[in-house]
């Protein structure tokens, strides 16, 4: 029997690194998926072992453009775990503020792209419009819209002055109002329900076996959240809920992210409120890092970022291990994509929240008569939504 294979990648893939998905299809149904990574292996761990601890912060920040505070935060947690250093309370609030603003902008980015893939371009444009104002908040807080450069071992490098806080709260109010509107529109839409419910189901057991993290695991009923399990910085002092849903389909992954955005807004509000009055320094002077080993982690928008650092008493690590959340979440696609129609494969692959700059690349399908046809997966997915829309609304 001829195997029909649809290649996605290796360049301009669905995921934030250049990757290669090979979907084996039988007619319209995906029967197998093979993932090939390594195209973006840049040797960060090796480079980091040749940099000082402060230089490494800027290096790990550049691992990912979207999670550009999660990696430095997990790294400074690891170094602080070696040195057993405490962080001043004001710095803890600033760290949590930046970490949660990142979650808001990342989830808005995902929401927009997910909307685009299934033919909701208005959602895409709105979500990205309001993401812009979150990036402007970053500029006020850190001086940069991306790659904030704010984390330091023992605290943060930049304070948030009291006079900028009312402006930040006003932006947050707008974003929250608009998010509520988007969430209600999504919850009320029957097309969205029939398009996403029961699609790409990842069972609880499969999520546990794959050691999945973040919204991918929480949408499958696995209650793990680093912010709750090992509360660092100000996470132990603010009030929020970890969102866990049971079904494991794409719809639940969407709802987890939308509800998490509201929780993040709640945390940011509490942090800004505290920063009005919390006195004190923002950086403890850490003179030396002793020999030892430490683990640091942070709940990034996509799940747990893990850093392991071993030191020998010098000013640089002798081993630095980095594990990003997508490394454990991507293998879950092998389970969730099997047996689903090709038109749903795109949104299922996208539901683990990879980052995609140029998805709309021509994909060549070799059909049974060995002709090569150019098929666009985004177009296929959008056509299915259009068909459902016609069926439901007439």
């Amino acid at each position, binding site marked *: 029997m001829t195997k029909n294979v649809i290649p996605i990648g*290796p360049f301009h893939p669905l995921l934030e690194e250049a990757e290669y998905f090979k979907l084996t299809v039988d007619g319209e149904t995906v029967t197998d998926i093979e993932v*090939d*990574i*390594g195209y973006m*292996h840049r040797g960060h761990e*090796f480079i980091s072992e040749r940099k000082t601890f402060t230089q490494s912060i800027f290096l790990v920040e550049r691992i990912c453009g979207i999670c550009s505070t999660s990696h430095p935060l997990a790294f400074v947690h690891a170094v602080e*775990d070696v040195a*057993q250093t405490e962080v001043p309370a004001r710095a803890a609030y600033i760290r949590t503020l930046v970490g949660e603003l990142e979650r808001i902008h990342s989830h808005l980015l995902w929401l927009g792209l997910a909307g685009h893939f299934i033919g909701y371009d208005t959602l895409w444009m709105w979500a990205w419009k309001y993401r812009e104002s979150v990036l402007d908040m970053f500029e006020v807080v850190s001086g940069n819209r991306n790659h904030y450069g704010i984390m330091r071992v023992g605290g943060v490098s930049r304070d948030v002055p009291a006079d900028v806080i009312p402006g930040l709260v006003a932006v947050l109010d707008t974003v929250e109002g608009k998010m509520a509107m988007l969430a209600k529109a999504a919850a009320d839409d029957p097309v969205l329900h029939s398009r996403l419910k029961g699609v790409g189901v990842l069972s609880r057991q499969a999520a*546990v*076996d*794959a*050691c*999945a*993290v973040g919204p991918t695991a929480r949408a499958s009923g696995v*209650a*793990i959240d680093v912010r709750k*399990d*090992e509360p660092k910085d100000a996470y132990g002092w603010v009030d929020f809920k970890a969102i866990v849903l049971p079904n494991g389909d794409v719809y639940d992954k969407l709802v987890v992210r939308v509800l998490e955005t509201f929780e993040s807004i709640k945390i940011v509000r509490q942090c800004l409120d505290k920063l009005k009055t919390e006195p004190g320094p923002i950086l403890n002077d850490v003179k030396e890092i002793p020999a030892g*080993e*430490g*683990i640091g*982690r942070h709940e990034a928008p996509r799940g*747990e970022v*893990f850093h*392991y650092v*071993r030191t020998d008493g010098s000013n640089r690590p*002798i*081993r630095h*291990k980095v*594990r990003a959340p997508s*490394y*454990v979440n991507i*293998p879950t696609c092998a389970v969730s994509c099997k047996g689903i129609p090709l038109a749903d494969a795109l949104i299922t692959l996208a539901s683990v929240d990879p980052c995609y700059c140029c998805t709309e690349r021509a994909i060549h399908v070799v059909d049974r008569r060995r002709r090569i046809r150019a098929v666009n997966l985004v177009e296929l997915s959008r056509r299915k939504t259009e068909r459902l829309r016609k069926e439901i609304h007439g």
Partner: protein
Amino acid sequence: MVDKNQFLEAMRNRIGSIIDKKGRLYFELADEQLSEVARYLFRTMGCRLSTATAMETYHGLEVLYHFSHDATGQYYCPRVIITDKNAPRVTSITPIVPGAEWIEREMAELWGIRFEGHPGPEKLLTRRHPGRLDRPLRLRRQP
């Protein structure tokens, strides 16, 4: 729920020297004990494998697994030290913990460690590398 003391009591005969820090438990063990300890951590205690770290030390290679017990925020890190520099090998835990598949393939490729019993031991990162690699990329010395 099994806590740290119960774990240490249950695994008393299987593990060697221990470093106990706040929320982190690093312990050495022999390769023959790795499967049993991994099964206890993953199946009995419900730990999640965060990842694993391989590194080159003066004595040889070292593989350190990081199991996270999310209910308590405690990390359990079994460490296997490989002294055979010419043919380093460790028992694979992928048959017990499916989530270890990629990281074991990565360590095998970058550090030249053979994981006995791994179900799919092909390369992970340099499978389609155009050039011929003369040694595992992260090793400083020739094997």
